[in-house]
C-alpha cells in the first residue's frame, strides 16, 4: 500500500504484550501460526503462552495494519500442511517493534533510576 512506509511507527504504540511478542517472533524468520506460539513460549520460558484465538486475532490486526504480511513461499512444502500460512514482518512492522522496544527500554531505565531495579552485574 502506497505511503505505508511514511506512517509514524510511534503512532502504533503502545503495543499489546501479545502483539509485541508476535512481532519479536517474526524478526529474522518467517513462521506459521503454531511456530509463533512455540517460539514465544520457548523464549519467555512459558511465561507468555499465546492461545490460538489470541494469536490469530492479533495476526489479523497486524495484517490489516500492514505490520505483518503473508510470506509467498513455504520453507518445505513436502513436509508441511498445505493449509498453513507463513507470516513475515514488514519494514513498517519492524520499525514499530523497534519503537516499542525503545519505549519499554525507557520505562525500564526509569525504573532503574528510581531504584526499583538494580543494574545487572557486568
Amino acid at each position: 500500500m502506497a505511503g505505508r512506509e511514511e506512517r509514524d511507527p510511534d503512532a502504533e504504540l503502545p503495543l499489546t504484550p501479545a502483539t509485541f511478542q508476535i512481532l519479536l517472533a517474526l524478526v529474522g524468520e518467517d513462521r506459521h501460526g503454531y511456530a509463533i506460539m512455540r517460539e514465544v513460549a520457548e523464549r519467555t520460558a512459558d511465561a507468555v503462552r499465546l492461545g490460538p484465538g489470541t494469536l490469530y486475532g492479533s495476526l489479523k490486526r497486524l495484517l490489516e495494519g500492514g505490520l505483518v504480511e503473508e510470506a509467498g513461499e513455504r520453507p518445505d512444502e513436502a513436509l508441511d500442511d498445505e493449509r498453513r500460512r507463513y507470516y513475515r514482518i514488514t519494514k513498517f512492522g519492524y520499525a514499530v517493534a523497534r519503537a516499542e522496544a525503545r519505549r519499554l527500554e525507557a520505562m525500564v531505565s526509569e525504573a532503574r533510576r528510581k531504584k526499583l531495579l538494580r543494574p545487572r552485574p557486568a
Partner: protein
Amino acid sequence: MNRPASADERVYELLLHLYPDRFRAEYGAELSLAFRDARRDAGGADIRFWTGIVLDLARSAPAERVSTLCAYRDHLSPPTETHMKTMGILAVLIGALQAVNAIVELSAGGVRDGALPLSVVLLALVLGALLLAAGVAMLGRSRRAAPLAQLSAVAWLGLVVLVRTVHPWMSIASTILAVVFPLALLIFFQLGRGRRAAGTA
C-alpha cells in the same frame, strides 16, 4: 498430510463457532491446525490444556465479535440529511406527545390518585420538552442537536427504568415511544460518529 480429526479436534472445531463467520472462514483451518499441534506437544488434551483453550476462547471470541460489529458499523451508510430530518420530526412529535401526555396525567388526577408520583410525571414533562428541543435542533441543523438528542435519549431510558419500578405495567405504545425511539436516536448518532471517525482515520 491430512488425517482424521480426533474427538478433541472436533470439539474445538465446534467451539470455533463462537467466532464470527468471516474470522472462522479466514483462520478456522489454521486455528484447528494450531490446536492439533498444541495438543500433540502437550502430550494430549487434559484438564489443564482445555482450561487454557477455553480461557483463550473466552478472551478472543468476544473481542473478534466486537471487532466485526465495529467494522460492520463503519461500512453502513452514513446518516443523510433526510435521515436527520426524519429523526428530527419524530423527536418533535414524540417529545410533544410525551409532554402533552404528562400534562394530561397531571390534570386528569392520576397523580392525585397515587397512580404515579408527581416527581415522575414532572420529569416526563421536562424530558418531553427536552426531546422536543432536540428535535427542533436536529431540524435546524444545530451543533447542539447531537448532545441534546443523546442526553434526552439516555434520560428517557433512565425514566423508563424509574417508572417500571413504581408502575410495572407499560403499554406497547409507551414502550415504543419511551424505549425504542431513544435507542434508535442513540444508534443514529453513534452511526454518524463512527462514520466521521472512519473518515478521519
